[in-house]
């Protein structure tokens, strides 16, 4: 995963305003910086209206930035029309041409560039082969299933080997099973082709599975850019923590510090113990504990572990794991995921039982800027 060489796309301080029909100004992009390296798989992740699709359409050329610069392969692209950009898109709705055969759909980009018929046929065949749709050139898109249309749209977008492939929620219309296998195929295809992918999704699982880097967007701002593990383990703020994965988030104040650890008191009075790091006495922070970081028994030395105690409210078996919801005496709700291995301890998870949930104080993540 070396994408240290010159970026394929570089966006600086991108701003885009919209005006709603009611005359209200909406900031779809509010000073976004992004660079995508060659052969990198970058995912734009965020809730609907976060600006991810606007950013994608700015790269493809269907939206004009109000300000900011857009450079693709070293060339300024702000004023270049979509059809002259070295970028292709896989559209959410596939947007296959209904009047053209599969072969002509895939060959479209070549035909408009005047590539001779023979070479076109060869390259169309190769592209369809790559997406597992070889030999279906003669079919009409209307006769294909959703998954097949998806593959044709993909073949159509890669046939001309763009510098960058943009994918606008391409898997959202597929059923869960197909979506998962397409995720893996896309990832494989990307490394085979060696071209950069910018993938837009609101599905955090999809983003975590496929990406080299994830860009979390909200309200037109970049919330965090990082590798999937980094985003998951060390979210930059409460939004990222809440948007990606399940989370227990405590607003807390540092009450005791020693060399290694800090003790914090949450706003409702729960006591938490974390690695000290840079924490200062009386500092206001937020502490993130993922549900799967809890254990029913202390897994190591009690020195490096801490616990939260409360009453079990509900336990749900979700296949392999138990989801436990517990309420502390102070009133905080804590969600935990307990592995199957602890099934012997099942009686402890009955609603109404008092439960102690252990966590490694190392694992608790302290969010920067928790004072806000």
């Amino acid at each position, binding site marked *: 995963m070396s994408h240290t060489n010159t970026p394929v796309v570089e966006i600086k301080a991108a701003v885009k305003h919209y005006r709603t*029909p009611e005359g209200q100004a909406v900031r779809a992009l509010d000073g976004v910086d992004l660079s995508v390296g060659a052969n990198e798989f970058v995912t734009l992740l965020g809730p609907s209206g976060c600006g991810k699709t606007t950013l994608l359409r700015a790269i*493809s*050329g*269907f939206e004009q930035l109000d300000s900011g610069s857009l450079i693709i392969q070293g060339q300024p692209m702000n004023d270049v*029309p*979509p*059809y*002259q950009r070295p*970028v*292709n*898109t896989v*559209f959410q*709705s596939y*947007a*296959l*041409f*209904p*009047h053209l055969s599969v072969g002509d759909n895939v060959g*479209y*980009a070549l035909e*408009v*560039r005047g590539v001779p018929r023979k070479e076109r046929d060869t390259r169309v065949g190769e592209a369809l082969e790559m997406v597992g749709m070889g030999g279906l050139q003669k*079919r*009409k*898109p*209307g*006769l294909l299933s959703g998954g097949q249309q998806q593959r044709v749209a993909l073949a*159509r*977008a890669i046939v*001309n080997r763009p510098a960058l492939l943009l994918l606008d929620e391409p898997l959202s219309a597929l059923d869960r099973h197909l979506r998962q296998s397409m995720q893996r195929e896309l990832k494989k295809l990307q490394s085979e082709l060696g071209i950069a992918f910018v993938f837009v999704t609101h599905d955090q699982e999809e983003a975590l599975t496929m990406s080299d880097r994830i860009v979390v967007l909200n309200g037109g701002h970049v919330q965090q850019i990082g590798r999937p593990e980094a985003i998951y383990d060390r979210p930059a703020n409460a939004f990222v923590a809440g948007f990606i994965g399940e989370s227990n988030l405590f607003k807390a104040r540092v009450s005791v510090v020693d060399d290694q650890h800090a003790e914090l008191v949450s706003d409702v009075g729960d006591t938490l113990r974390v690695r000290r790091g840079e924490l200062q006495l009386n500092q206001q922070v937020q502490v993130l504990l993922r549900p799967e970081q809890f254990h029913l028994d202390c897994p190591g030395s009690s020195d490096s572990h801490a616990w939260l105690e409360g009453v079990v409210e509900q336990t749900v078996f979700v296949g392999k794991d138990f989801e436990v919801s517990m309420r502390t005496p102070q009133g905080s709700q804590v969600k935990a995921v307990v592995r199957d291995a602890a099934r012997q301890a099942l009686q402890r998870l009955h609603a109404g039982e008092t439960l102690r949930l252990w966590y490694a104080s190392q694992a608790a993540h302290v969010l920067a800027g928790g004072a806000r």
Partner: protein
Amino acid sequence: MSGLTLQGRNRLRLFGLLSPVTLLIGGFFVAPLLIMAAYSLAEPGMYGGVEWNFYPDSFGRVLGWADGSNEEFDIVYLEIILRSFRIALLTVLVSLLVCYPVAFWVSRLDARKRNFFLFLITLPFFASLIVRLYAWVLILRPSGFLNQFLHHLGINAELDLIYSETAVLIGLVYIFIPFMFLPIYASVEKLDRRLIEASQDLGASRWQTFRKVILPLTMPGVAAGSIIVFIPSLGNFIVPSLLGGAKVLMIGSLVEQQFLAARNWPFGAALAMLLMASVLVFLLLYVRSLSRAEALEGRP
């Protein structure tokens, strides 16, 4: 009812539903058509009636085998038919050029403005056709509004448009624009804008996108509009009589003259049959292009 099987009941229901329309078409369409066909091959009587003898010379007057013993072949009838075709085709072309871009513009308006515009398009139907055409006489005549308007602008063109082919063309385009606009609008509105984006994304210029995506996908509307405008303009007789005068005779006016003024029903019927035959050829072409378009979209 209980004695009937489900299939029998369905058959009865189908029969009941189809008989009114069958009677209507049979009584009011097929029967008059057969009468016309019979008249076209009958001999014109001395004082306007018909003698029921086989008499192909009414067709011969137009198509060339009338030898002068009964009727005489005159090239003028073919000229009139040719002129009618030319004017009808020009009507189609002009209204197409007007309606196609406007349809795109209207389809991009917001819903309220769009509905208002569609209402405006149908507004002329609320006034009598004759009145509206006389308004065009007032506009186009030498001392009419058009020349007055040009005069006010300082242009003394003194356009003499009335009673010319141009006047007939203007009148026909005016009448048939709604018929061209509505089918084109229907297909333009259905056009998925994302396909246009996809085409541009794949490197097609605006012109390539128009030729390869927009035009083929709106072709059904264009074809439907063209047929709907072409057929009635070809046979129209009101516009040429009001705006074309005696100089621009179209086949519709000729048929009307034969029935009402010359009282030669067989010849009028023969002309009508020839007109219908040529229209049928065009309809067949349309149906064929339509089924080809459907095959293109992969529909069965």
